[in-house]
């Protein structure tokens, strides 16, 4: 029968409960909290691009008196912080798990890193010849375009609906903001972009909770 000291579950109901509980607990520990993957970026966009809009407002106005270096510095600091939070959450969840998922994550991370460097290198060469407001538009529109495309591509890898929706949303509002012009683009990205990220984070978290239900 059972020669070892591992007794069978008392009955079928106990067995099924044991399976659900264990699978749920494991999935919860191996899945980084979606809020930590999305929300820090939402805050960074809201505050960073919000300051951009207030300092470099449409029509060369200045809605809020701020040093001209401040918006970009704050934006970069918050983006770095968001990347750090996201990295730490992933690292903790995927610790000591290797294989296809890890490879997907590494290659996708590579697409972000290398893709950003190769795109922005061109912008550095071009933007020094542009007036300040157009240079700012070029940078933020290109960044948002790249981000939207990478999000849609990432969603295709993991069949992640909230991420796909976010990629579509970012691409569309980027188009709207670019048509609206310098200054307005920052406002559109700050409000609609960060809003989209926060909503996508909430949806991803809800999906995650459903998946983790024992």
């Amino acid at each position, binding site marked *: 029968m059972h020669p070892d000291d591992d007794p069978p579950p008392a009955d079928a109901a106990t067995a099924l409960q044991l399976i659900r509980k264990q699978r749920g607990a494991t999935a919860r520990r191996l899945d980084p909290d979606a809020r930590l993957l999305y929300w820090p970026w939402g805050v960074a966009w809201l505050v960073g691009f919000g300051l951009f809009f207030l300092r470099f407002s449409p029509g060369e106005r200045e809605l809020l008196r701020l040093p001209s270096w401040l918006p970009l510095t704050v934006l970069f600091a918050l983006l770095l912080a968001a990347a750090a939070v996201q990295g730490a959450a992933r690292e903790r969840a995927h610790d000591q798990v290797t294989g*296809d998922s890890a490879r997907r994550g590494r290659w996708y991370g590579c697409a972000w890193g290398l893709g950003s460097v190769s795109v922005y290198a061109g912008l550095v060469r071009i933007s020094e010849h542009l007036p300040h407001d157009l240079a700012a538009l070029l940078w933020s529109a290109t960044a948002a375009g790249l981000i939207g495309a990478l999000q849609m591509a990432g969603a295709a890898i993991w069949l992640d609906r909230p991420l796909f929706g976010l990629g579509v949303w970012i691409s569309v509002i980027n188009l709207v903001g670019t048509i609206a012009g310098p200054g307005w683009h920052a406002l559109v990205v700050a409000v609609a972009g960060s809003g989209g990220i926060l909503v996508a984070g909430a949806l991803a978290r809800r999906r995650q909770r459903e998946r983790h239900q024992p």
Partner: protein
Amino acid sequence: MTELDPVIHAQARLRVVASLSALGDGDMIAFPRLQELLAMTAGNLSVHLRKLEDAGYVEVSKTHRGRTPATLIRLSRRGRLAFEEYTEAIRTLLDPTPTKEQS
């Protein structure tokens, strides 16, 4: 009553297999992390993994991470199938509505 797979129909090994089934298809987990997820002693987990490996349900591979040796574990295709069949059998026991053909 349906004959339940005796390798999996055991409390601790069922937990091991259920936990491994939550990993992605092509993923492996290191022994210490699995041990932590299951809250089992190393000796206990080793014994159960050996039994699962003997049944062909689990693949254990030894590798190196830098200089430290690491043991990586995954559910084999056969193990995944056995687990799915076991879960199905349990569900049928709990809810024997004849959705399929009657015998």
